[in-house]
């Protein structure tokens, strides 16, 4: 499949849009069920772990197809997670202790999620075999 054919680009945009629709709604649901700060913390941690799994899985084994990866990474996961709401929460937290907690929580759980997703991808790849080219991070 050629990557620059207009129909392929159109398909990619549609997949990104569909993923974005679903991801933003799931984030909306999470902040609705929990409060805003823990809701964003949860989606950022889980989304970072899931993206890391897909990116490293593409690097190590490549079992997930291109189209599925675009929907999940660029569409769903990048829209599920958010930086702007996290930044506004940090800016408006007021209490220095709460500021530190919000930043340390999102950064700490986000990076820990990446390491966990990477370990899982390695484990899956060990069971599956061959190595192919890298995956998109966005």
């Amino acid at each position, binding site marked *: 499949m050629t990557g620059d054919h207009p129909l392929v680009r159109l398909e990619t945009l549609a997949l990104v*849009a569909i993923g974005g629709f679903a*991801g933003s709604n799931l984030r*909306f649901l999470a902040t609705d069920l929990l409060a805003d700060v823990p809701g964003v913390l949860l989606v950022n941690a889980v*989304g970072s772990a899931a993206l*890391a799994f897909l990116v490293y899985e593409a690097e190590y084994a490549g079992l997930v197809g291109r189209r599925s990866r675009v929907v999940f990474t660029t569409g769903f996961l990048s829209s599920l997670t958010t*930086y702007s709401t996290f930044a506004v929460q940090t800016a408006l937290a007021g209490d220095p202790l709460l500021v530190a907690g919000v930043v340390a929580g999102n950064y700490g759980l986000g990076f820990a*999620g*990446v390491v966990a997703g990477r370990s899982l991808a390695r484990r899956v790849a060990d069971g599956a075999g061959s190595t192919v080219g890298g995956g998109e991070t966005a």
Partner: protein
Amino acid sequence: MTLDVLTVTSTISFAFDLQPAHLVGTGGAIGAVLRHWIYLQFSSERFPWPTLAVNAIGSFVLGFVVFAGVGESTAQLVGIGICGSFTTFSSFSVETVQLYERGDRLRAVVNAAANLLLSLAAIGLAWVIVARGPLAL
């Protein structure tokens, strides 16, 4: 006929019940496509510029939405939907860990700090524009 009426009624109530979800989802789709476009234009192997750009720009717009006191529907469409999806935490954290593990530890730290500081500065700028700028009431 009865079935038709039931179908129409349930469709209408379904649409009304899910209106916030439609707004958030539509905004989310727009934000994701805009972010995808930025990544296609500005991707770099050396430093994750696109993520830094979308996070700072999206934080500025969200700050504007928050401080300007827009209506609930606008906040859901633009704030939660477009800005929420346009900015990304997952790409940021994966890219930061990738920088770190390939040996660019300084760049990883700079990236982590720059995303936070630029986003906070952008929110501050939005506040200044709303509170002091030409748009101030």
